[in-house]
Structure formats: C-alpha cells, structure tokens
C-alpha cells in the first residue's frame, strides 16, 4: 500500500545533516561529529527518561494506593526526582575496606553501559533508527546478557556475605529468564522471517504481529511480559533487592552516585524491555492498520509514528508497574520453578505451533 506518512519520515532530515557535515569536513570527522551528536542526544534522553520514569512510578504507585504521591516539589511534584538526584549526588561515597576497588568501581558502569548499548538498536520512528543491524534482536539479547556481569561483580566485590548472596540469586534469576525472553522473541522472528528490527516493524504494516499470529503470538506476549519483568528484577520477582528479610541485595554497599547508577539502570532496563515488546509485538512505530478498512488506516496514519511508539511503550511500562504494585513477592525456589517447569516448556511448544502456523499460512492478514 502507498507510503502515506512521508511527512513523518525522518530519513530526509538525517540525510540532510549527513550531507551538510560531509561537505563541511573530511568523512572521518563527519562520522565522528555524527557519533558525538548521537551520543550526547542519547545521554540526555537516558537521563531525562530515567528521572521521569522514577517520578511516574511513584505517581502510579500512589494512585493505585488511593493516595497522592509527590506533589510539593514543583507543580504536581514534577521536580521531585531532581531533588532526589541532587541529594544522592551530595552523599558521601563510602569506601569499603578490603573490597576489590577496581571491580567495585567498575560494576555500576558495566550495568549502565549495557543498557545504553541496547538503547541504540531500537527503532524510534521511520528514519530514527540509530543502528539497524541485520541481527537486531540477537544483538539486544546479547547485550542484555552482559548486564548480569555487572550485578555479579557488584555482589562479589562488596566483600559482604549478604551482597554476595543477593547477587548470586539475582544472577541465577536473570540467566534463567533470559531463556524465556529469547524463546518468545524467536517465536515472532519465525513469524516475521527475519531478525532485523526494521524488517520486523515493516512487516507489521498490515496488522500487528500480536493479532497476526493469534494464539501463539498472544502466548508469546504473555510469556515475554512475565519473563521480562523477572529479567529486570522488578515486580513480583524483586527478592534480590527488596529482600527485607536479611540483606538489601547486591547494591547494599553502594552509596551516592554509584547507587544512583544502579537505580537508573534498573528503570532504563524496564524502558528497553518495554520498547522491545512494543516494537516486536505491537508494531513499534507502525500505526494500527486493519486489513480492509482503508479509511480507518488513513486516519490512523495522521498520528505521528513517534507518538505511536511512545504511547505503546508507555502502556507496556504501565502494565509492568501494575504488576509490581499488585502481587506479593515470589520466593527464589518458586521463581526458578516457574521458569524451568512452566515458562520454558510452554515457550518451546509455542515455537513449534508458530512454525506450523507459518508453514500452513494460517495467520490473519498477508
């Protein structure tokens, strides 16, 4: 069908910047300046989104609990997180005796860098896709697996028995649930026929994958939501950090800006996981099209794709926050039972069903 939303196409804009830079200086410097621009934009994006996700969580939590949430610092408490950030920055960085200093200082950076790297591969709008690898999904999975290293390093180098315990538990949890995340993403790659994220988004032009691959796609979505919540140590799976029984988890010994890094990385991980779900299951920046209703599709196209992307991500983030504030916590053995005895077998069977459906052509739409 014709490309009806060319006014929202950012490729023209980015091409213009590229040609302007290349005409102004040598190709090496042009590419370098482009990388600097993108890097600075991402840093700003990361910081702002991280801060406002914390604020949003506090407000959502408050509304669910029949109370108001932060409402005094700034209008509707808008600047509350900034005040918290300033307080954290001014705190004393307590050096631990006999802690492995290199690893202790390295761990928060590893966690932040991996979430930063994953942010670069997600399509935000047509033409606003920083790195379009042909193994996009695989790349994101690989990068998020590296985050576990940061957590284990943090627990080990703190030289405290409880940090180590918390880090081991968290590590086991994340490694187990990565399997389910990967398998549910593979289900959709089977449907789409490729791992490249831009192809996946384009392939949802007629209908989003969650509707196209009916039963297996919905099952994959549910499994993905549960597994992704567990991967980011959130929600009912947060025993590693909210363990009010004995220890406060792997980041007990961190204070000040390093603690802020862990905290921020957790919220950004949630953002990445949510935007991945929005891209792969709900169509990314592609508006909702129904095959056959041309008028409806034209109306939907008027809403800019960036808004579609942001809206879908926000809805999925709200669902994840909804999980956290409703359910009690799982114990570690129940968590691992859930993964290995329930989610994994169901994902495997699901892939078989999806492959069968793709072969027989029994999906809705083209």
């Amino acid at each position, binding site marked *: 069908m014709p490309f009806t939303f060319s006014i929202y196409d950012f490729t023209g804009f980015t091409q213009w910047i590229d040609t302007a830079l290349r005409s102004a200086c040598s190709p090496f410097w042009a590419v370098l300046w482009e990388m600097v621009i993108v890097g600075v934009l991402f840093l700003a994006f990361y910081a702002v989104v991280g801060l406002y996700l914390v604020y949003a969580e506090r407000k959502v939590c408050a509304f669910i609990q*029949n109370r108001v949430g932060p409402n005094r610092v700034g209008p509707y408490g808008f600047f509350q997180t900034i005040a918290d950030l300033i307080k954290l920055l001014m705190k004393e960085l307590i050096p631990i005796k006999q802690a492995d200093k290199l690893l202790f200082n390295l761990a928060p950076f590893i966690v932040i860098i991996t979430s930063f790297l994953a942010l670069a591969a997600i399509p935000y709008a047509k033409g606003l896709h920083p790195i379009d690898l042909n193994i996009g999904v695989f790349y994101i999975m690989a990068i998020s697996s590296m985050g576990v290293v940061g957590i284990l390093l943090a627990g080990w180098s703190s030289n405290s028995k409880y940090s180590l315990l918390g880090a081991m538990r968290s590590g086991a949890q994340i490694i187990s649930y990565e399997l389910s995340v990967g398998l549910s993403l593979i289900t959709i790659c089977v449907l789409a026929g490729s791992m490249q994220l831009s192809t996946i988004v384009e392939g949802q032009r007629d209908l989003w994958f969650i509707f196209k691959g009916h039963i297996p796609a919905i099952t994959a979505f549910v499994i993905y939501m549960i597994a992704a919540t567990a991967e980011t140590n959130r929600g009912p799976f947060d025993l590693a950090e909210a363990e009010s029984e004995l220890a406060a988890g792997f980041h007990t010994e961190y204070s000040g800006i390093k603690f802020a890094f862990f905290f921020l990385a957790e919220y950004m991980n949630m953002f990445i996981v949510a935007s991945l779900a929005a891209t792969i299951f709900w169509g990314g920046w592609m508006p909702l099209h129904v095959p056959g209703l041309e008028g409806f599709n034209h109306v939907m196209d008027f809403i800019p794709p960036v808004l579609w992307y942001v809206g879908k991500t926000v809805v999925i983030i709200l669902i994840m926050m909804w999980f956290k504030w409703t*359910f009690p916590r799982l114990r570690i053995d129940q968590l691992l039972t859930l993964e290995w005895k329930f989610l994994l077998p169901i994902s495997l069977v699901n892939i078989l069903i999806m492959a069968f459906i793709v072969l027989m052509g029994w999906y809705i739409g083209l």
Partner: protein
Amino acid sequence: MAEEIIIKEADEQEISINMGPQHPSTHGVLRLVLSLKGEIVNKVEPHCGYIHRGIEKMTESMTYQQIIHLTDRLDYLSAHINNGAVCLAVEKALEVEVSERVKVIRTIMDELNRIASHQLWWCSFGMDLGGLTCFFYGLRDREKILDIFEETTGSRLIQSYYCPGGLMADLHPNFQTKVKEFIKYFRKILPEYDELLSGNIIMMERAIGMGLLTKEQAISYGVTGPSGRGSGFSCDVRKHHPYHAYDKVKFNEVLRTEGDTYARYMVRMDEMRESMNIIEQLIDNIPEGDYVAKMKPVIKLPEGEYYQRVEAARGEFGVYIISKGEKNPYRMKLRSPNFSNLSSLDLMARGNKIADLVAIGGSLDYVIPDIDR
C-alpha cells in the same frame, strides 16, 4: 541491623544470624537469633524484653481505676478488650451488676476493635509478603473505625473507655448511624481483600502447607486465638465462658483443621465477617439505661484471688488479681496471648526457608509490647 556470629562453621556450615531488634518484618522490637543451614532454618530463638516497662509491678502502686489506662498499652490493637478484662474482674469481685446497656455497648466496641485489629493484621501480612498495596487498602478502611472511636471516646488507638462499673461516657448520638454505614461499606470491600490477596496464586503458594501446627501441639504450647483455631483447637472464650453480652448473640466459632499459614489467614478473614454479624445483631437494640453503675470513689477488693479471661484479637487474655483488701492489688498477673503464640514460632519454622519465617510470623500476628509487658 544484621550482624553475623559464626559459631560452628567448620563442621556443618551452620551459621547463626540475628534478625535484630530493628527489623521491618518482626513487628516491633523482637530479636530472633536464627540458626541457618544455607537457607533452611534450623532453630529460632526469640529474645524478648526490649520493651519491658514493668506494667505488672506498676499496678501494685495504682488504684483499680488507674490500672485501666495501663492495660490499654499492652496489646494496643485490642485496647478495649484488655480494658474489659480488668473491669470484669473488679466487678466480679465486688459483685456489682452492670446494666444491660453497658454490656451491649462493651460488646459492640469489642467487636469493632477486633475488626480494626484484623484489618491491621491484613495490611502488615500483605506487606511482609511483598504486596505493598494491601497496606494502604487496609489502613484506609481502618480509618473509618478509628473515626467512630474518636467520636465517642476521644482517642483513636488507646481509649481507656471502660471503667469499673460501666463506661467513662455515654455513646455519641451519631454512633449508631456511623456503625451501620461502616458495616455496609466494609461488607462490600471485604471481597476485594479476598480477590487481591486470598485467591492470589503467589500468596497461596507461599502459605499453603507452610508452618504446620497440629492440634496437640497447639494445645500443649497454649496457642489460642485465631492461630490456635487455625489448627482445630476450639478455644474461643466468647463461646466457652461468655461475658458481656456474648451469650445473647448468635455467631459461629471459625475453626479450620489444616494448621498451616493459609488456615490461620482464612480464620482471621472469616472472623471479621462473624464480628460484623455480631454487631449487626446488637446495633439496633441497644437497651436504655445508665452508662455507669454506682461505685464507691475508692475501690477496695475483698481479700482473695480473682481471674477473668477475655478473647482478645490474638488469643486469650487473662487477668489474675490477688488482693489483700487494700485499694491497690497485692499482685496482678497478666496472661498474655502473644507470649504463648510466640513460643510456637520455633516449632513451626524449622525446616522452612527464611522467607517462610516472615510469612509464619505474620500469620501468628504477634504484638511485641504484649509479650514484654
């Protein structure tokens, strides 16, 4: 907050850990010394006494009217019920007959207090398990009961409303309407509690089959109240030794036989419904009469020993007075339900994990000032 004393790490890798006096999950200042083997609990040793205030000794220098305000502060979540125990003991000793109005009002206040106490138990149980919204829902509904108390008695938590011979003041004119409104409201909200926590698969996995206490063990440890009734031990003082107006109302004693955390949980949820039934039967028929009987200004109990037991929200609360004919008791001993309940924590927690210990403690619902007095 959590220190570590390694006792015999060499042979069995068993470590001894303090769940110290300041801890978010032990509700109050209680020190639990746990012996852990990996994650399994081998032994739990409670060390209490951090909030011992010498209440029993203080009562030896106070008159009987002044003792009432001390019993409030024992198990502060069943303040009215504890007051009732001392008042009944004194009235029994002096053979004073209180009017029907007083009995009915005392029953209604006791049952409202029981509902408020169970609401607070529900909030903190949900919070211990990790579902933080339960805390706010329970407290929001408890505020309505506290408003009713404040209108009549003047205080929310610690009221000192009863006195030997009757009540300190008569009911506020709005009392009946407000209680009826509350019952209508709460009957609609209680299914929400069930939907949120009781039927939840996560909570059921964590509670069913954990912390088993058989009926014989409950009887031998003296575990009374909802914790004992969850194991099948029929120990409701309101049924076996009725006081106030309990012999005139119809209600069921909630019993379950499984003896695990889930059974204790469901006993308390059902008890809230039974309390509402009791209040509904009484609220429209409060008889007219005096709110206080004629008593001498200085109360002197005749020589002898007197015992009175009541059903507090957590178990059987007993008051034992030895009097030598003076205006102060010679010795007053308080049988606290939480002390006996806590002694069964060791038995129930063995072989379970640390996370279960928190859930079991929450289902026992102990209030530390009652243990230490």
